[in-house]
């Protein structure tokens, strides 16, 4: 397979994730769509690592996975805190940062 196919696929995945971040209202699903965008970036990184024949790109992808895990942990903590404070879990309703 040519490398360009993988890069095109990663671009499509990134775009679908970006559309989801804008369109959806549930912060949980927005986090999922962010994961989609990060995974699109990961696929491009690994495709380019294969293209150059260097493993450094795969290490970058591994670091991106770590970042995604951190983002998930903090985001889910925020959602649980919102639930505990009896706020509606909806990004259209969240207009202030007061805890």
């Amino acid at each position, binding site marked *: *397979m*040519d*490398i*360009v*196919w*993988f*890069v*095109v*696929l990663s*671009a*499509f*995945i*990134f*775009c*679908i*994730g*970006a*559309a*989801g971040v*804008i369109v*959806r209202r*549930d912060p*949980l*699903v927005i*986090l*999922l769509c962010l*994961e*989609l965008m990060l*995974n699109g970036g*990961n*696929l491009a990184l*690994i495709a380019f*690592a*294969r*293209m*150059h024949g260097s*493993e450094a790109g*795969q*290490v970058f992808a*591994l670091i991106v*996975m*770590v*970042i995604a*895990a*951190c983002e*998930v*942990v*903090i985001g*889910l*903590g925020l959602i*649980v805190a919102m*639930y*505990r*404070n*009896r*706020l*509606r*879990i909806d990004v*259209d309703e969240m207009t202030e940062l007061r*805890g």
Partner: protein
Amino acid sequence: MWFEQVLFFIAGAGALAGALGVVMLRNPFYCVLSLVAHLITLAVLFLLLQAAFLAAAQVVVYAGAVMVLYIFVVAYIGGQDEAMRPDDSLISSFGPLFAAAIGVELCFALIGTGLESLDTRGADVGPGFGSPGGIGSLLLRRFLVPFEAASYLLLVAAVGAVVLARRRRGIEDEPPPPTPREAPAETVEVRV
């Protein structure tokens, strides 16, 4: 050779279908399951790119651990269907347009790129490319500082999540909220 192409198109279609499922399904629980399917097909694509260690990490860490965390939270807050926006709202028509604009721009960038080796199968690599040994020695030699920084970032995120989600004083004795999604938004004063 043809086997590789067939596998690419099956896995690519699966990845796109999983991504579309995440964006389009209304129930958050099904969204999470769709993302699990997407991640597993993406691991197949990683294997096609000779990233064996990353494919294993994707399945074990991502599709295994992180998605379990998501499912726990969906089960905790109750996975009701998401409310629809009114049809005339600006944002629900702007989102797909924005995504299409990014897609067109990325395709133009790919068409006009000067990278000739994009149309090849990539550089010749040995059989050990992407093995755990190679990645591990890169992480501990060339990328030691980013590796340590990532570990500290994980520690900070874990502590932050504990601080964010702990049970605060003031709402501890009250009964749990019945259905917070349908209930009107009422703010509760919380003294920390």
